Structures are given as structure tokens and as C-alpha cells.
């Protein structure tokens, strides 16, 4: 088991990281040339009105006051109201509405990547330097070379335009109206027992998940392969085989368990790539997650939304890596030192 001290120490280490992250986000927005007061008041507003807006927003205060206030906002997770995208709506409620959409997509993409990537990586390692291995490796290398904004359009063209099998964009057919409960569309449609709506949502999600999954699959199978090769070469593997244990059982029992440890780290490290991929996937498939929200907010100088979204992404990323570290130490207690 993980010791409480280790968990406490890791949690404590989060504080300076989050402080640094918040400071960077504050700095980025105050360095950008756009003027939010002008953006809100409109280009043709009088100078007096622009100044009025500026002081209403607190943007006329000295920088250190704005900074302290921002840190307070971060701690209470209150970023005020959106300037542009949904003017007057609290940023936290916009995020609450959009975040589950991205999380659903990212989690499904990650699962797809693991389900296909892990077996491929193991197969490649066990059959090292055979034709199977070479084909899998070339496939995986091609997978990480193909950007999501190319594989996405190609699959839409093939399955939606030419074959007409799947919908092209959005999250659910326009005939369904769904009151969000959890915000996860597959869960919500099941909770309300609307099976047709569930099928519609699932067919809408299929292509985005495949696109995101292919990339993750390629990454995971590569990592799994090298980690498995390392394990297969260990002495205990030879010992197990010498005892007369079958090859398959040895790989499954001793090999997998030890090869999984690095894979968990990989899931953590690649979580950033997954989130970046989700942003691109949302753009290609016109899904209203926080990825498209961020792009919109940057384009329209909606500062509070940009700040909150970037912070949410960084916090998610940091937390996932914390969980990964803790899981890691459960699997291999030596790591705690």
C-alpha cells in the first residue's frame, strides 16, 4: 500500500506547480496585445465608455492587485462572467457544461487506444523481429505520423460522405433533445432509457473516438513493445521457463505484470497529447467541448474563459500525472524513495 506520508508529500508538491501554472496563465493574458475592454465595448465605442468598461472589469487597477485577485479567483475557482461567448454567463457554468463532453471523448479515445494498443505491443514484443513485428511497428510509426486533422477528414469523407454509413459531425441526431444530467451523452441517454438516442449518440461518437484512438493506439503499442522486450530479457523470465512453465503462461503471468508499470507512466505522459488530440478532434467533428471553447475564446478575446480553460487543462493534466505516480508506487513499492 502507499503510505499516507507519500500521498501527502505528493499533494503538497502540487501547490507550487499550480501556483506557477496560474502565474504563467496570468502572464500570458497580460502580455497578449488584444484589449478586452475594446472587445467588449465594441470598436466604435467612445473612449470614455471603453475606460468605463475597463474600470468595471478591474483592468484599470495596478497589475499586482489584478494578480492577487486572480490568484484568489483560482483558489475559489470563480472566474467571473464570460465577456463574449455567452456574455454574462458565469465561466464556471460554461465549463461545467462543456467539460464532460471533452472528458467523455478523451476517455473513450484512451480506452480504444489501450484495448488495441496493448495487445499489438505485446504481440510485437513476443514475435520480435518477425514479419508480424515489423508490420506492427511500421503501422504504429505511421499511426503517430498521421495527424488527427488529416485522419479525421479522410474518415468523414469515406464513411459519412461516400458510404453514407455514419453522421459527419455533432454529438447526436437533431431530432433528439436531451436535458444533460451528467453531461456524458452516452450515460445520459441510458439514464433516460432512450435507446434510440443512445444509438444516435454512439454512432456520432464512433468516428471521433476512432480518430483519437488510432493515435493513442500507435503510441501505446510502441511503448508496450519496448517495455515488454525489456521484461522478456529478465532472468526471472528464464527461470520461470526453466521450471517448465509454458511460454504463454510466463508471458501472461510474469511478463505482463512487470511490463504494465511503464505503460501506466506512458498513459500519464501521453495524457497531454490526448487532450491536444481532443481539441483537434472537436474542431474537425464540430463537437462543443472545451477544446473548441478555448479556440473560440482566444479568437474573441474572452479572457476569463481563456484563463479558466487553460487552467482546467493544466490541472487535469497535473492531477492525472499525480494519480499515475500514486498507482505506480502501489505496483512497485520501491518507487516511494
Amino acid at each position, binding site marked *: 500500500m502507499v503510505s499516507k506520508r507519500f500521498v501527502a508529500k505528493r499533494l503538497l508538491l502540487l501547490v*507550487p*506547480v499550480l501556483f*506557477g*501554472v496560474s*502565474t*504563467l*496563465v496570468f502572464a*500570458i*493574458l497580460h*502580455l*497578449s*496585445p*488584444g484589449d478586452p475592454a475594446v472587445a467588449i465595448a465594441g470598436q466604435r465605442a467612445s473612449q470614455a465608455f471603453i475606460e468605463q468598461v475597463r474600470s468595471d472589469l478591474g483592468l484599470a487597477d495596478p497589475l499586482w492587485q489584478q494578480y492577487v485577485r486572480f490568484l484568489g479567483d483560482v483558489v475559489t475557482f470563480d472566474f467571473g462572467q464570460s465577456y463574449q461567448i455567452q456574455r454574462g454567463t458565469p465561466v464556471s457554468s460554461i465549463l461545467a457544461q462543456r467539460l464532460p463532453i471533452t472528458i467523455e471523448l478523451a476517455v473513450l479515445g484512451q480506452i480504444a487506444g489501450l484495448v488495441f494498443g496493448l495487445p499489438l505491443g505485446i504481440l510485437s514484443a513476443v514475435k*520480435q*523481429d518477425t514479419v508480424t513485428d515489423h508490420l506492427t511497428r*511500421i503501422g504504429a*510509426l*505511421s499511426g*503517430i*505520423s*498521421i*495527424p488527427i*486533422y*488529416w485522419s*479525421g*477528414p*479522410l474518415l*468523414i*469523407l469515406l464513411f459519412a*460522405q*461516400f458510404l453514407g454509413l455514419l453522421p*459527419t459531425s455533432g454529438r447526436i441526431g437533431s431530432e433528439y433533445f436531451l436535458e444533460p444530467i451528467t453531461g456524458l451523452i452516452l450515460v445520459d441517454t441510458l439514464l433516460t432509457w432512450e435507446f434510440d438516442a443512445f444509438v444516435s449518440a454512439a454512432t456520432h461518437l464512433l468516428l471521433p473516438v476512432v480518430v483519437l484512438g488510432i493515435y493513442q493506439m500507435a503510441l501505446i503499442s510502441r511503448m508496450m513493445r519496448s517495455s515488454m*522486450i*525489456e521484461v522478456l530479457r529478465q532472468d526471472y523470465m528464464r527461470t520461470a521457463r526453466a521450471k517448465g512453465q509454458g511460454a504463454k503462461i510466463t508471458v501472461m503471468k510474469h511478463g505482463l505484470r512487470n511490463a504494465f508499470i511503464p505503460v501506466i507512466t506512458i498513459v500519464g505522459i501521453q*495524457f*497531454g*497529447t490526448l*487532450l*491536444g488530440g481532443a*481539441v*483537434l478532434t472537436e*474542431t*474537425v467533428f464540430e463537437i462543443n467541448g472545451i477544446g473548441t471553447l*478555448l*479556440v473560440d475564446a*482566444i*479568437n474573441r478575446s474572452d479572457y476569463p474563459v*481563456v484563463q479558466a480553460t*487553460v487552467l482546467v*487543462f*493544466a490541472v487535469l*493534466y*497535473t492531477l492525472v500525472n499525480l494519480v499515475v505516480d500514486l498507482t505506480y508506487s502501489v505496483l512497485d513499492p520501491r518507487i516511494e524513495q
Partner: protein
Amino acid sequence: MSTETATGSTDVERSLLERLRASPFLSQLLANRLAVVGLSIIGFVAILAIYARLTYDLEGLMATQYGVNPAETPPNAEYWFGTDGQARNIFPRVIYGAWYAMLYGTVTVLASTVLGISFGILAAYYGDLADNVIMRTMDVLLSFPSLLLALALVTIFPEELGLWRAVAALTLVYTPRFARVVRGAALKVLEDEYIEATRALGATDPRLLVRHVLPNCLAPITVQSTLNFGLAIIDIAALSFLGFGASPGEPTWGMMLSNGVEFGLFSGIWWWSFFPGFVLALTVLGFNLLGDGMRDALDPRMRETVD
């Protein structure tokens, strides 16, 4: 003074060349068929890029061509990759995109490598406060998903910079990776006894860093740079695709893909997205093949399995 530094640098070059020839690295790399394929792809794209830069006139590629060419033509014998919504021939535009990718990719990778090397070596050498300040800053940069950090950073730079905005943002995003690799390698080198000996012989700090620490970090840096090159091309195009980078009409792969998705996808015009994306993916594959081959050639454990 100047002659001294000049001979100094040729010494470094000569010893590097000798080391390369003596080490099994180059022969390992060339024996790796996939790495050679990667190298050939990169060479081919580089030639395309230079050819496009020298033959095509950029203004002509950007201007609309109504009346000159038919608009929205599928690929045929005359227009190999078809024409776009503004009747522009897509083939020369895709080829010119190679110039953009190679140029901006090289600058991004070079800039982040140089910055990363400097920060990494400074952190390792001076330790204490310098190490803490530098590496904690790098940690903060590494706490963001890379594409999202790049998106946020792009906004700092004025829009007139166009694609250079993307280059600047991605340079900042990639620098910490190099700094970490270099710092680790440099710390290992600095522990060696010969560093102590060199210092006892009167070597100055800068000399020590340039002649002894830097050459010993080169191998991991080269692999990291090569693998990062592919990533840089993907990310630069991704930023253009999301609307931050190239200006409309510029023949970059990211911009062409963005237009293809926005205007061509739902009318089934596949050639607007297919060709730029294909050449982009091929180029990135080239860098990944080469980077993989280099890593295998450098990692002795991998070498065992090849034998």
C-alpha cells in the same frame, strides 16, 4: 585570438568526425533499413522544397486564378492534385508547402535545441539557485499539454508575425524537453573524474562546457531533435489548422487542410484535404523513421536484439 578559436572548433569537428567513424553508430544507422527509408523521404521532401522555392512565384500561388483554371476540378492529367475553390492549381501549392514545413520546422527545432542546451547546461553546471530557478520554470511549462500551451502562447505575439507566431510559441513549448535531457546528460558528465582533471589543468568554465560537456550530450540531443522535427511539423500545421499561424491563401499544409475541412468536407471534395495531408504525413513519417533508427543505433540494449 580569432585563430585560436578557429583551430579550437576544427579540433572539435575532427574529434567528432573521428568519433563518428570509430563508433558503430553510423554503420548501425545505415544497416537499419527503415532509417535509410526515412532519410530518403526527408531528402526527397527537402529537394521538393528547394525546387518549389526556386521555381514557383509565391504571389502567383496565393492569388486567385479564376478564368485561368477551372475551379474545384478533381485531379486529372493537367491538374495532378486538382484545383481549389479559387481555381488555384493545388499541386504546386502542396509542393511549396514542403518549403514552409522544412523552413519553419528547422527554425523551431534549432531554436528550441539551442535554448534547451543553454538552459540545461547552465542548470547542471551552476547548480543550486540557477538550477532551481531554471528547472522549476521548465516544470511549469511542462505542466501544460503541449498543443494547448502553444495555443495560449501564440496569443502573446502580434498577428503580423503570421507563421512565426507558431514558431515562437512552439519553441517555448519544446525548450524544456531539451533542457531536461541536456541537464541529465551534463550532470553525468560533470561527475566524471576527467572533468576534475581538466579543471586541475587550468581549463576555464566556458571551455569545459563547450569542449567536454557539450560533445558528450550530443547523442541524446540529436535523437530528441530528429523525433521533435516530425512533431514540430505536425504542431505548426495544427496551429494553422486551428486558425493561428499562416494567413489565408498562404500555401501551407495546415492552411490547405483547414480550408479543405471547412469548405470541401461536406461537399465531398476529397482532394482538398487528401493531398496536403498525405505529403505532410509522409514527411513526418520520414523523421520518425530516422529518429527511431538513430535511437536504436545509440541504445546498446537495442543493438543486442538486432544481432
